[in-house]
């Protein structure tokens, strides 16, 4: 496979970089020798999605809805249960181990936890050099040169090359994680809660860095987060996930100005507003508990918590209407 050996021609504005069709990932838990019947967690349950070149596509949703799993399956860090993933002209779904490893230069990930994502026993230089070596970047001198360049690119001094991760603060570590992901000049980067663990004053720095690097290196971000505020300030488009499914997809402004899915609306109204004058305002609140992904209700998976649920919602699952514009999986989308 040499699809990606040469720099690809500049993509057209609407070029699709990554697309998934009906992607699912089910985990089977229990059901060992004495474990009783196996149960299936539908972590990702039929996701169809197109990500355009050079956009920031944010994926939001509550804990356990399958955001991380979707991100990993898209990069085939985990094997999908069914469905397909395409990257440019390549079908990733059943690409062999060797070809996939070669493609990994282009498909990268930045993790959530700046403390767990760097090997504590490796120096920064080793951490940055490793992806370069894995893809035969060049001579040791060239690799060293590139490491320095990477470090400076994320705003750290070159002296830090010989330090260990524990010598850095969370924000600095996250910069190192970003530098590592960018080592081989990828074009698609999954950011899995990459700023969630950072303090607000540092979070803004790292988001600005990600933005600058996107402009500079033509990156496409798949930006996973549970923080709607960050999404609004950072993303071009947003997908809202609920129990393994996308329930709404749209541009950031459309989605925030006119949420169509009741879940999106409730999610947004739950975000604490940093404005004490507005605290008295009545707001819709979600009642009850989210159903378990092991035991999904029949019909729309949101109906048990939906204030607008009707009979059809209990019987029939609405499908995400895809097509150019905003898409929503609801029998009775809210009026704009």
């Amino acid at each position, binding site marked *: 496979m040499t699809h990606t050996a040469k720099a690809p021609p500049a993509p057209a504005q609407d070029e699709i970089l990554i697309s998934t069709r009906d992607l699912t990932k089910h985990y089977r838990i229990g059901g060992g020798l004495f474990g009783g019947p196996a149960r299936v967690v539908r972590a990702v349950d039929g996701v169809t999605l197109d990500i355009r070149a050079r956009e920031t596509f944010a994926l939001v949703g509550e804990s356990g809805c399958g955001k991380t799993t979707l991100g990993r399956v898209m990069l085939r860090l985990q094997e999908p249960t069914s469905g397909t993933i395409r990257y440019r002209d390549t079908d990733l779904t059943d690409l062999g181990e060797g070809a996939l490893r070669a493609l990994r230069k282009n498909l990268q990930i930045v993790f959530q936890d700046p403390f767990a994502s760097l090997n504590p026993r490796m120096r920064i230089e080793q951490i940055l050099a490793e992806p370069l070596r894995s893809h035969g970047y060049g001579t040791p001198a060239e690799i060293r040169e590139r490491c320095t360049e990477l470090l400076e690119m994320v705003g750290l001094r070159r002296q830090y090359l010989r330090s260990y991760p524990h010598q850095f603060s969370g924000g600095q570590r996250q910069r190192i994680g970003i530098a590592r992901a960018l080592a081989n000049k990828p074009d698609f980067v999954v950011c899995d809660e990459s700023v969630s663990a950072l303090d607000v*004053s540092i979070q803004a720095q790292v988001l600005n860095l990600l933005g600058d690097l996107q402009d500079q290196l033509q990156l496409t971000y798949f930006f996973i987060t549970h923080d709607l505020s960050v999404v609004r300030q950072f993303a071009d488009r947003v997908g809202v996930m609920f129990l393994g499914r996308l329930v709404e997809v749209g541009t950031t402004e459309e989605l925030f100005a006119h949420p169509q899915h009741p879940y999106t609306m409730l999610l947004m109204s739950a975000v604490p507003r940093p404005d004490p004058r507005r605290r008295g305002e009545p707001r819709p609140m979600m009642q009850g508990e989210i159903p378990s992904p092991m035991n999904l209700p029949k019909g729309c998976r949101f109906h048990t918590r939906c204030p607008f649920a009707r009979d059809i919602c209990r019987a029939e699952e609405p499908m995400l209407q895809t097509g150019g514009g905003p898409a929503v999986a609801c029998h009775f989308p809210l009026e704009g």
Partner: protein
Amino acid sequence: MGRADPILSVRGLSTAFSGDRGNVTVLDDVSFEVGRGQIVGLVGESGSGKSMTALSLMGLVPQPQGRVSAREILLDGVDLARLDGAGMRRIRGGEMAMVFQEPMTSLNPVRKVWEQVGEPLAIHQGLGRREIRARVLEMFELVGIPEPKSRLDAYPHQLSGGLRQRAMIAMGLICEPKLLIADEPTTALDVTTQAQILQLMRDLRDRVGTSIIMITHDLGVIAEMCDVVNVMYAGQIVEQADVFDLFERPAHPYTRGLLASIPRANEPRAGRRMPSIPGMVPNLAKLPPGCRFAPRCGDAMPLCTRAPELAALGAGRSARCWLHAPDAAQPLEEMP
């Protein structure tokens, strides 16, 4: 608002740790008040000393490395700073209770929920099992646990995060404390669950009149919940204000920076880059001389190499900044 007769008045609280690398002062001269029925916020970034303040008040700072000293800690007229271990044990869980961040790790996984929630009653009021069970049931109803009867005999892992946190709050309130300290009670929860828990705490204040210290790093939570706010930075309180003043006319440059750098879900994206505070939180073992915020401060001046005091700026407001020193008095500008 009960400022005349506060339920809690802390004066000159300082906490230091001694370790292999010398002494580290993690709290430096912390003073604040909590009025009756007030919700007082303690906000600051990671490591600023919020939890340490709570632990110092509760007498739970790890011994013998930690040393706590205070001029006085008056809880409804009783000076906790003069109490011995046995005296503090009587207060803890009785007149003053605490709710922790991690609802999972602060409950013992092998004991039934009702036994744990009712434990303070056994300790402080010597009630029997039947009475305790009845009280716990009442508390479960108060904190809005659905089907409270059937949850009594549950084990912690059988409850969702939101329910566990409700149970923790029930435990905190079961002896009708004069003061409830909530240390990041919603940080581990989803926004929709967070909204429910915050609503619950507001209700409890309104109905039961509990005074609450609300510890958080989220200015949104502060704006939703608090009457009065203390902003902490590197172990010191840098600003104290009424919540409206704080958000509309922040006095300290750190507060201003913080307010500017929080991403807002309810406002469209302003531009490509977000305002951020440069630099990072100082290491408490290697503090800069003078003002601890000066190295990151856009308004730093030569005077800032001397440590500013927390100076009063009029009714219930104070700031630790030379910009507001009595001689250099300056009107506060409106936030745009």
